[in-house]
């Protein structure tokens, strides 16, 4: 399927009048997938999702169906489904659009997924800043209760489900699944040590599945149109790499930064960054050239201009030294921007958001920010560059020095910026000049 033939799936109803209402969702064929799913055995629903090759849209790209099968087979007592709506990766805004414009699509996915995982209580964890999302979701959930789409015996079946809408309190770390669970339990959002993984012991010490909002939005379409349809989109598995799970289905790309037309576009997985910027975002602004592009939220690191032909699927960004596809939030940085300033901004974010549990992340992110602050004041030393590299290569779950991936997210922008733009850093330090961009307020 080429891009020109592609009709938006997840964003299909965006822009329709009153698209948030149950009435309009039903008029467009909504909740048919739910009725179909409820007529199937729950294991068949899992098999269907597994067969579709759907991978989690939250950042890590873990196969959704497989995640569901990790729940213990014989469960006594409750299982929980947590929906991760704590969308706080810089540059990412796809969940917001999905929830604000078409909440019932997401909620239908949640009910189907809850049925598949035998969940009777689902928690929707929404970041606090999304006030409109909260109001829209609340209204939608109320409508569902009123129309037998939630509560006891949904659509006349034996299946019952409650959804609780929970607002966070403005912390990036709550997007980490175990941090989210801790926060949901009313505790400080310090990610848990694993094992046990949430599928064995999660929220309230019960087996728990944590899924992203966009993943949920895909579920009704997979049930309705079948896994084969889903697999017609995207990049198939690499036959030479048995560990590659492929990148199937539609994906929402959030484009921001120095482009003429920032926004959200839905495309099949695997479009190249260059095509995305030129075709769908109106190119780099002011007739300039791109210097660096973030493939999927700032924690994934930077691609240089030369690497823009990398396909933005789950495997692509990794091949050019980035951490992964992440949330597919593409941030374009033009050639007038100093990478020192960009990196400083990224480091400042992670120093601010580090939960402070693990020493390497707590101190490493703050230290690197201080170093970059000093460089920007014109007092840098050439040895700082190697020090930043040393910090970035020793924090995170990949070397094994932290509990969660926040530190990896902090390390990758440092690593990729310095490795790919080292001459610029050296020139900046040697010149001893001060940054021209405004000094950002202290993080605290």
């Amino acid at each position: 399927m080429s891009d020109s033939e592609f009709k938006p799936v997840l964003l299909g109803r965006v822009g329709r009048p009153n698209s948030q209402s149950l009435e309009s969702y039903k008029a467009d064929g909504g909740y048919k997938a739910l009725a179909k799913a409820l007529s199937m055995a729950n294991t068949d629903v899992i098999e269907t999702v597994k067969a579709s090759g759907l991978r989690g849209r939250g950042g890590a790209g873990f196969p959704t169906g497989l995640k569901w099968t990790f729940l213990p087979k014989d469960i006594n007592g409750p299982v929980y489904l947590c929906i991760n709506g704590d969308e706080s990766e810089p540059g990412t805004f796809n969940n917001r659009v999905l929830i604000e414009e078409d909440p019932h699509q997401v909620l239908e996915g949640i009910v189907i997924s809850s049925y598949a995982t035998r969940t009777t209580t689902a928690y929707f964890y929404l970041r606090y800043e999304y006030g409109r999302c909260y109001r829209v979701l609340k209204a939608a959930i109320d409508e569902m209760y009123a129309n037998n789409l939630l509560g006891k015996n949904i659509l006349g079946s034996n299946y019952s489900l409650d959804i609780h809408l929970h607002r966070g309190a403005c912390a990036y770390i709550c997007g980490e699944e175990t941090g989210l669970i801790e926060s949901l339990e009313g505790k400080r959002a310090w990610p848990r040590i694993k094992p046990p993984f949430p599928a064995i012991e999660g929220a309230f010490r019960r087996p728990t599945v944590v899924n992203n909002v966009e993943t949920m939005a895909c579920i009704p379409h997979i049930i309705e149109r079948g896994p084969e349809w889903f697999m017609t989109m995207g990049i198939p598995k690499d036959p030479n790499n048995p560990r590659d799970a492929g990148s199937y289905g539609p994906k929402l790309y959030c484009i921001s930064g120095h482009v003429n037309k920032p926004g959200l576009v839905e495309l099949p997985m695997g479009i190249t960054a260059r095509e995305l910027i030129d075709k769908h975002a109106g190119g780099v602004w002011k007739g300039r050239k791109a210097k660096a592009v973030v493939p999927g939220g700032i924690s994934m690191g930077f691609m240089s201009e030369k690497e823009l032909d990398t396909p933005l699927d789950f495997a692509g960004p990794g091949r050019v030294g980035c951490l992964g596809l992440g949330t597919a939030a593409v941030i374009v940085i033009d050639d007038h921007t100093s990478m020192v300033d960009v990196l400083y901004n990224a480091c400042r974010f992670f120093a601010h958001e580090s939960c402070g549990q693990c020493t390497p992340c707590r101190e490493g992110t703050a230290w690197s920010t201080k170093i970059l602050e000093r460089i920007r004041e014109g007092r840098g030393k050439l040895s700082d560059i190697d020090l930043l590299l040393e910090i970035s290569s020793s924090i995170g779950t990949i070397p094994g020095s932290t509990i969660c991936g926040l530190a990896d997210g902090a390390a990758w922008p440092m690593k990729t910026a310095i490795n790919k733009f080292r001459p610029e850093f050296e020139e900046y330090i040697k010149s001893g000049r001060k940054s021209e961009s405004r000094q950002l307020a202290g993080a605290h």
Partner: protein
Amino acid sequence: MPKVIVNDIEVDADPKDNCILAARKAGVEIPHYCWHEALSVVASCRMCLVEVGEKKPDGTVVMGPKLVPGCQTPIKDGTVIKTDTQKVKTSQALTLELLLLNHPLDCSICDQAGECYLQDYTYKFGKAQSRLDEPKIQREDKYHIGEQIALFTDRCVMCTRCVRFTREVSGTAELQVVARGSHEEIDVFPETPCNNKLAGNVVDLCPVGALCSKDFLYKKRVWWLKSADSVCTGCSTGCSIHIDQNEDKVYRLRPRTNPLAQGHFMCDEGRFGFKYISDERRLTKPRVSESIALSKKSNGSKAGGLGDLNFSDPWSDVLEVTRTKIKEAIKTDARGFVGVLSPFMTIEEAYLLASYLKQLDSRVRLVLGPVPMVGTDDMYPKGPKGEAPEAGKVKFTIRAEKCPNRLGVEAVLRHFEGQVISVAQVAAKADATSWYFVGGYQHGWVDESIDRGVGKPSLLIVQDLFPSPLSDRADIVLPSGSFAERDGTYVNHSGLAQTANAAVRSPADTRSDGRILMELTERKGLYNAMAIRKEIGGVIRSLAALGVGDLGENGVKLNASNREPVFS
């Protein structure tokens, strides 16, 4: 037993061990801050990162790709732990450098210096130079954090041991982490300081100088302190402790880990309750009444007037007089002679006195001194409303019975007297003519009923720490030693016999009870608790377990060894 290979040393580990414990068995130290045996695992300091692999049956070793926290990683048969690789060393050095980034390096004025894990680990695993070229974050000290504890915020390494202690052991949850990232701090809610009865333990738990005891603050450099292993005598829990002293002054008590006794902690009542031993009101000189002194003088003693107390060694004459008086009294009315053994005495001391008196005349009565009880047993962790934990979930108990050795003294009494009679029973009958009281209590123990029951006997001997109505009118007063001056054995509430070692010499002209009784009872040689313990083991069946002499650091369970319900 799973076999674990630590840096090429093969050891037998416990299946429940983590890598830190397994490595310890091989004599390899894995540095750690946040992990503590008695608290939950958070694996957040990342100091204990090691390389872990597996030795396959065919002998090949496959190492994992990442560093893993030793505290969180369980072991199994064939686990290979490496702590000396370059990867591990680099990680340890960097973690220490990061921990010291915002640390004020004020060791010269820090109480913890000398027993600080930041110092020790930096010396062993860290590097001498920091690469920080920016100002450090400065934080306010928090003296308001508790009545007994002060927080030097900028020395904190955020291991959260203290926070977990108040949540998991005391259950009071006063301490918490506030703010985020490198700005986070330990704090309390406004006006809810950490004043629970176990609060002092957070000072011991703190691996660095962040939480300090206000009581000990700036009193003594820890390297001047000498430590003796002893037992807390505050209640019948019998916490194993270290008594830290310098020049015969006790500066602090610290809990000594003993899984058979209390575990890892001790209560503040015991920890800070030792001050009475240096109270100026203590009896300091042996004294005899004027009438005895005069009678002795008329007998032509070589020494001068006893009433004036002008002796080169006041004790030898006093003890001689005491001995004579006891023998006289027993000859006159053996049944009327009552020896009162205090539950603060060690088994050895009780045995010395009891065996002596009974050997003089078996009709002499031996009774148990008052057993102080305060309230009810106080169990932790507390629930959210301060309620006691369910049975089986108790992690620490402060007992209502405020003495260390009721069971031990009772065992001695049962052997010599056949039963345990309380002093109150005899006092009520008022048929005693001579009394030998042994005290040693922390607080006034002579209540009105005893006072009245004793009345004005023909002979009253009091061996005690503090003046009381009895000592005021006693014929002979023998100033005895506090718990810090005693050698001997205590039996706690559960029948665990533990040895206490004297930490300090007795002040002024006082003597520890053992030394007094050794000489009084005409035994040869110096008081040696272990020798007497061995003797007791042969004589008293219910205390046969003491026959080994050396009870080890943790002590010996008496009930387990003789399976007789000697202890009620």
